[in-house]
């Protein structure tokens, strides 16, 4: 983990209440897709933990949904503004487990971490399939970005307005030859996938956090391997250790 000052290169609305922000600064602390950053905002006591969508040698891309005052404040920030950010938090996904053809399953605000994961798996010669779930057509974001990577991208909408009608599990049910799955999204989605997917998998969880780096015990959960802190020992848990 590092603490640094990051400059906003862009901050744009990509779907209703969903924003993509690109930050410039030191990215050396990022070790795996699925990690997150923790952002200090003027006038708010606690930092805001946001998953990393993509990163390179000098930029970090995050995608966040405006759900409260903190994220509304972020949405109003301009290009050039500076933010105090803790970078490289959490364990992230383990790409070594993927096999040849893993599923990358994101639901709503859980879509972003799948993007850099897809890039890394492609770089390793794997053939990931992305399954992106949204409620309606207007909520869809990053479909083109996933498609531009050249991977098979299946979009599901709960109202059936685009792609597969229903949930990500309905798309998974039509596939059989996958080797592993990675998932991030609302807990009901994760639980449904846990029951529906035949292969092993890794699932990324959310919890209200105090610090984000393992000090306060604010986000503890029980697993088959003992108590784990979602922020430090997670947010990614292996399928076999999860207790619902």
């Amino acid at each position: 983990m590092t603490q640094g000052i990051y400059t906003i290169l862009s901050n744009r609305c990509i779907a209703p209440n969903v924003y993509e922000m690109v930050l410039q600064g030191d990215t050396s602390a990022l070790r795996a897709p699925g990690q997150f950053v923790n952002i200090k905002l003027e006038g708010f006591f606690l930092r805001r933990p946001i998953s990393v969508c993509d990163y390179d040698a000098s930029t970090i891309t995050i995608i966040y949904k405006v759900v409260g005052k903190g994220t509304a404040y972020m949405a109003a920030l301009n290009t050039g503004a500076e933010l105090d950010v803790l970078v490289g938090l959490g364990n992230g996904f383990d790409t070594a487990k993927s096999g040849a053809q893993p599923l990358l399953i994101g639901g709503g605000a859980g879509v972003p971490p799948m993007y850099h994961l897809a890039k890394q798996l492609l770089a390793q010669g794997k053939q990931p399939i992305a399954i992106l779930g949204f409620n309606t057509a207007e909520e869809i974001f990053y479909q083109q970005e996933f498609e531009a990577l050249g991977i098979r991208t299946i979009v599901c909408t709960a109202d059936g307005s685009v792609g597969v009608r229903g949930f990500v599990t309905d798309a998974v049910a039509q596939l059989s030859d996958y080797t592993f799955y990675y998932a991030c999204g609302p807990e009901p989605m994760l639980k449904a996938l846990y029951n529906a997917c035949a292969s092993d998998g890794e699932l990324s969880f959310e919890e209200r956090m105090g610090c984000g780096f393992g000090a306060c015990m604010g986000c503890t959960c029980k697993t088959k391997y003992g108590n784990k802190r979602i922020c430090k020992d997670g947010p990614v848990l292996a399928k076999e250790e999860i207790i619902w």
Partner: protein
Amino acid sequence: MVKTQVTLSGLTLDNPIIPASGTFGYGYEFAELYDINMLGSFSFKGTTREPRYGNATPRIAETAGGMLNAVGLQNPGIDKVISEELPKLATCFHKPVIANISGFSAEEYAHCCALIDKQPQVGLIEVNISCPNVHDGGMSFGTTPESAAAITKLVKSVTTKPVYMKLSPNVADIAAIAKACEEAGADGISLINTLMGMRIDLRRRRPLLANTTGGLSGSAIFPVALRMVYQVYQAVSIPIIGMGGVSTAEDVIEMMLAGATAVQVGAANLVDPFVCKKIIEELPIVMNRLGISDLNEIIGGAHS
């Protein structure tokens, strides 16, 4: 060259800065970030006889200028703290540590304090009779002078190291409780623990924390903590460790002027993991600016 050394009941600290219990774990997360041997000491996670999972989540809620926590004393239990955490801590922290002990019965406090008293790494025992997030324990021992004195007397009878009683602000007369602890043999007083509070989720129309209530900490509570340190300083002659909303070197000076010999930093560690390092580096600069050559000269300096 300014003097930042202070002494708590014979234990000399290089500076008065001590990360507060529950905001610093057993130190390792921070040892990865900076050399924690620069700290005066630190108070490790509140420890009980049995391992505890703590409360259900959500355990954390934000407030204006602070936060609520209802962790509920999650810890591996005293036996594992001694067999696993302390040896691991010894690899990254070479100064005496403050052992924070909590309990659900008088016997539990005595049992844990007697065991921790034998650990050479421990310089001082901080007895938490003020946790607001557990039921039938913690704070219930710290809300009357009689029960606070009874725990103090019992712990003192089974220990040889300095014993500091950590008091709750959720009481009518904290000075009376501090006085009772002093008369029962306490070597010092730690204050304050968190203030009990709550938040309600507007959409669900239910308490935001699974535990309903939690302990308020952060900058918002600094004036309350300062006032209580000031009042307790007038009531007792034993040393005080002051805490509550401290986040800058100026806050440390204020706490010491109110009567604290050493100062703990709590919630600020969770927002800025480097805050204690920054305060320690800033302290001599602020002392110079304020014309302070020795911190010992300002302890209780605000009292006429």
